């Protein structure tokens, strides 16, 4: 174990199963979450996790349709220190989020929605990273690891 920890192994052993889903309209939200569920099922996630992952993808995809009009979701299986997981990257070239701190608060929304998308997605997943350039777009990266 010690020898292994010293090995500067690449952080991600990225599999060849990258799935890219363009997000332009309503129906793409369903397509993205179904593809995410399929990929996670292939990775061996239990049923509860499949629902969790699909729900998170749904929220991220809807944010693209609602705020940026179009973007994409890239799904991939990842590995880190011997554990496997799924990574979801949702990116768009929309207007960006002017106030990230508020966007991460429960109940804050500029569109009349419930305002749970981003904070809720953070709760659903293990890793959550967000980068948003005002005027340039938003990129959200989330991961869930197999227990």
């Amino acid at each position, binding site marked *: 174990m010690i020898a292994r920890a010293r090995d500067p192994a690449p952080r991600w052993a990225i599999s060849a199963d990258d799935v890219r889903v363009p997000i332009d309209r309503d129906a793409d939200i369903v397509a993205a979450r*179904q593809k995410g569920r399929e990929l996670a099922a292939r990775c061996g996630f239990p049923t509860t996790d499949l629902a969790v992952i699909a729900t998170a993808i749904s929220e991220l995809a809807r944010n693209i349709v609602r705020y940026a009009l179009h973007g994409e979701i890239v799904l991939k299986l990842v590995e880190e220190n011997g554990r496997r997981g799924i990574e979801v990257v949702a990116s768009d070239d929309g207007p960006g989020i002017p106030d990230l701190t508020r966007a991460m608060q429960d109940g804050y929304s500029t569109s009349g929605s419930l305002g749970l998308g981003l904070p809720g997605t953070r709760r659903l997943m293990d890793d959550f990273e967000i980068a948003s350039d005002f005027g340039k777009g938003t990129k959200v990266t989330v991961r869930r690891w197999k227990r």
Partner: protein
Amino acid sequence: MQVPILKQGAYLIATVQSALTDDDLKQLRDTLVVSVSKVRSRGVIVDVTALDVIDSFATRTLRDVAHMIRLRGAETVIVGIQPEVAFSMVKLGLSLEGIATSLDLEEGLAYLDRKGKRSGPEVGDQR
């Protein structure tokens, strides 16, 4: 994907068959609100057993359905929320507070029957 709506006695039963887009959900909401008075239903059951995801938009729409139908003088029960879906909804921060839910169609029908036997609708009943 259209959701078939069946009339059974005094009730309307909408059975979701597969994943719904946001537009499908809105259409279901609008159809139910109109149909409930057209056929003079006392109650509406929305069976979501087939849904593998109930996200924030779906939750908001189901909530709207129940509130609108209550304003039309009938009751709504959401039935069949799967355990992993319930888990994800709670983690996301969603709830259907104030909305009747039942395990399955049978329980949903029993709930509406019980409601119907009581004398008139309770004002501001928030289960």
